[in-house]
């Protein structure tokens, strides 16, 4: 009796998450209909975002700027975070002394636990002025957002990469050393190829997180509807635009924001599926 109950309960929980996923997708899709009909795929290339002054139900909306802003801030974050995270993982698995491994691991895991609003505030009040004196510009802008995003995703990447590097069998490493390989050669030719799946998986998962980050980026990207000419220019991203405009939007603008949300949903979903099914899955086999 109890066993059956438990079985039903866990089955229910499992299917529930599936239905929530499908439910969210269909809501986004149906609410985005007005905008999809009005603008179609031109939406992706249009730079205007202006509600009509007389009738707030109408207006012209395009998603090009937030799309570009999202991609650029993510690219900056990935370029900075990937080598650093790899370094951390290699240090923790191969180089660090036993007494160091634990404190560094804990520090990294704590970094992952900090809520994004804290990164946003720290970034705006402390980090942005530093960026301004170093690179010019306004302090807030694409580069500052990208760098803080990098700091936010490093722990994820480092932790997953470390775990996958830890799965390299000692026999392989020891044989390489026995052949006279240096530490660098072991890392390059044994550990990296063996844990490739996990490393790529961690990069893609971090990418998914960087794409959807809202609060910290909203503080730091400047929230201006413009194509950035320099890396220090202010621009906007999809989640930031949604967060800033949701409470006030009506009609077509609201529908256009659902359209943007749908784009973000599909992109993140695709990225995480690729990571899960292709790279992380391979490692298990």
């Amino acid at each position, binding site marked *: 009796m109890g066993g059956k109950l438990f079985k039903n309960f866990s089955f229910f929980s499992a299917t529930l998450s599936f239905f929530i996923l499908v439910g969210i997708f269909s809501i986004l899709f149906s609410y985005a209909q007005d905008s999809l009909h009005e603008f179609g795929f031109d939406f992706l290339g249009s730079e205007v975002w*202006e*509600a009509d*002054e007389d009738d*707030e139900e109408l207006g012209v909306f395009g998603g090009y700027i937030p799309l570009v802003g999202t991609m650029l801030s993510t690219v900056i974050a990935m370029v900075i975070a990937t080598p650093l995270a790899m370094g951390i993982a290699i240090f923790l698995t191969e180089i660090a002394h036993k007494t160091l491994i634990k404190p560094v691991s804990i520090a990294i895991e704590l970094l992952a636990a900090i809520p994004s609003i804290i990164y946003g505030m720290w970034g*705006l*009040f402390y980090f*942005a*002025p530093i960026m*301004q004196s170093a690179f010019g510009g*306004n*302090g*807030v802008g694409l580069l500052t957002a990208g760098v803080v995003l990098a700091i936010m995703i490093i722990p994820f990447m480092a932790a997953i990469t470390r775990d996958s590097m830890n799965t390299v069998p000692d026999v392989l490493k020891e044989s390489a050393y026995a052949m006279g390989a240096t530490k660098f050669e072991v890392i390059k030719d044994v550990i990296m190829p063996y844990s490739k799946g996990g490393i790529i998986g961690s990069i893609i998962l971090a990418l998914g997180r960087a794409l959807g980050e809202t609060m910290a980026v*909203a503080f730091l990207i*400047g*929230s*201006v*509807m*413009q194509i950035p000419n320099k890396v220090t220019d*202010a621009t906007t991203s999809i989640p*930031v635009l949604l*967060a*800033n*405009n949701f*409470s*006030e*939007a*009506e009609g077509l603008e609201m529908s256009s924001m659902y359209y943007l949300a749908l784009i973000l949903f599909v992109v993140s979903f695709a990225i995480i599926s690729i990571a899960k099914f292709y790279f992380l899955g391979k490692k298990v086999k």
Partner: protein
Amino acid sequence: MTFSKLLTTALVATVTLTATNADELKGRGASFPGPVYKAWTADYFKATKNQINYTPTGSGDGIKSITKRMVDFAGSDKPLKPKALKKKKLFMFPAVVGSIVLAYNIDGVKDGELKLSRAAVAAIFSGKATNWDDEVIAKENKDLKLPHEPITIAVRADKSGTTFNFTYFLNQLDDSFKVSKKPTWTAPKVVAGKSNSGVSANIQQIKNSIGYIEYSFKEKLGLPAAQVENKEGKFINPTLESFQDAAKYAEWTADQDFYAVIGDPKGETSYPIVAATFILLPTEKVDTNKKVTKFFDWAFANGDKSASDLGYVPLPKETKDAIRKYWETKGIK
């Protein structure tokens, strides 16, 4: 016996409690008057034990939620035209006057030292003047050392009644500015922040920036703000007195549901960037409307001091009387 008695008492108590709670009035909308409404509702509760809940979510949200009848009353910094009011079946009246200051962050320039002519304000926010030592700004500030640095303007990222009232003022200076809750800014260096606090934070952080914020934020954060040239060509510091002088010139009439944007008023001593904030009521809900007007009647009579303390300007007496009369003619007093 005693137990069931206890249960009954508890039940009665719960019912009465829920009943009083159900009596509370709910409002939301404009964040500009948020602090003063909060003070008024708290004092009103102390005086009358009537609970009024106001959530400052933004003017647009206020209009939306009162149109859908989700709340008992709404606040909006943007007055609705009589035609729109009719369509949405709403009453409207002003509640309090506030002001918008131009706060800046320039090394060595203290509060009230920077003088901005009407031409300078227009040039800065249109992007025609890109550096602080531009001729149009420097002309009025011969005694200040303005840096040869680019100007960053700090604006709102969200749609806002504050922006609406500020662009209304800009439009009076130069009609190429569009009056809008969220315009497209043409200046080269723009940084947007969410709500007054976001814009204030940007001004504090970014050197050589200038932005428009509500007066109470300037006071709270101690930001330096500029003297602005008014309609009569006088440079006026943003102070409660100069706001009061400005409010006198507002032309409100009950037959238009008090529709008026009061920015850029006449008067030699008027601070030019002032704004009224409005209350919206659903026409068909007579009973709750009476409770709302009772609250505002009380606030008009007893709330002037707390409003001035917070940096707002109470409505002139004649306007308050006109509003009371408006309530009577609409049968909601």
